[in-house]
């Protein structure tokens, strides 16, 4: 599964994207964030406030309780500040 990070989340994680193999019990966005937090200091720092993190599954905004089964691309980022 392809993961993308943007803005300060990208800076904290230290890379714009990566491919990961998720454990079978990672079923929702919230599960994914919890799993990512256990992958090292930079991830712990990046995801220290999960409620701030916005998520898009296959380029569509979703909530943290959304299932990610079958997703190809999951993007994580801070609240948008466009316009």
């Amino acid at each position: 599964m392809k993961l993308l990070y943007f803005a300060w989340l990208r800076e904290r994680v230290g890379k714009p994207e990566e491919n990961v193999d998720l454990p079978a019990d990672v079923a929702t966005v919230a599960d994914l964030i919890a799993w990512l937090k256990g992958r090292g200091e930079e991830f712990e720092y990046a995801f220290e406030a999960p409620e701030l993190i916005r998520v898009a599954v296959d380029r569509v905004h979703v909530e943290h309780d959304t299932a990610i089964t079958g997703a190809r691309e999951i993007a994580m980022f801070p609240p948008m500040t466009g316009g």
Partner: protein
Amino acid sequence: MPATIRIQAEPFDLAAESEKLLDGRADIGALASFTGYVRDEDGRLSALELEHYPGMAEDEIGRVAAKAESRWELLGLTAIHRYGKLAPGDPIVLVIAAASHRRAAFEAAEYMMDYLKTRAPFWKKEHLKDGTTGGWVEAKDADDSALLRWKE
């Protein structure tokens, strides 16, 4: 008429984009436009860097545009959002809405801007004149509450 949605590094041309919407038509009675610019923040700012999610930005703005088109009787709709490093005074975003009457044009343009601010995957980083990075612009509560106006 399908909405025109573009994500680009280059500047845009309000007059040219308006003309494209008008295109010699005589059923359009009202054209409302909005242009957003980089503010220099009382002289502190040297540049504003706009990061975006290339795969999603155009899709998401297209979804917002489709909602605007289903809500108002529009005769044309254009939304252009820039990315990259912009200087104070540079234009960032353009929305134009065309309709028979002014209310639909104004409301659709304002709706587009309110949703662009909070839904389009763009992030702004400030670069300051003293050479430091001012950090990422934080999302404003005022932008979230602006959306309440559009809830039915």
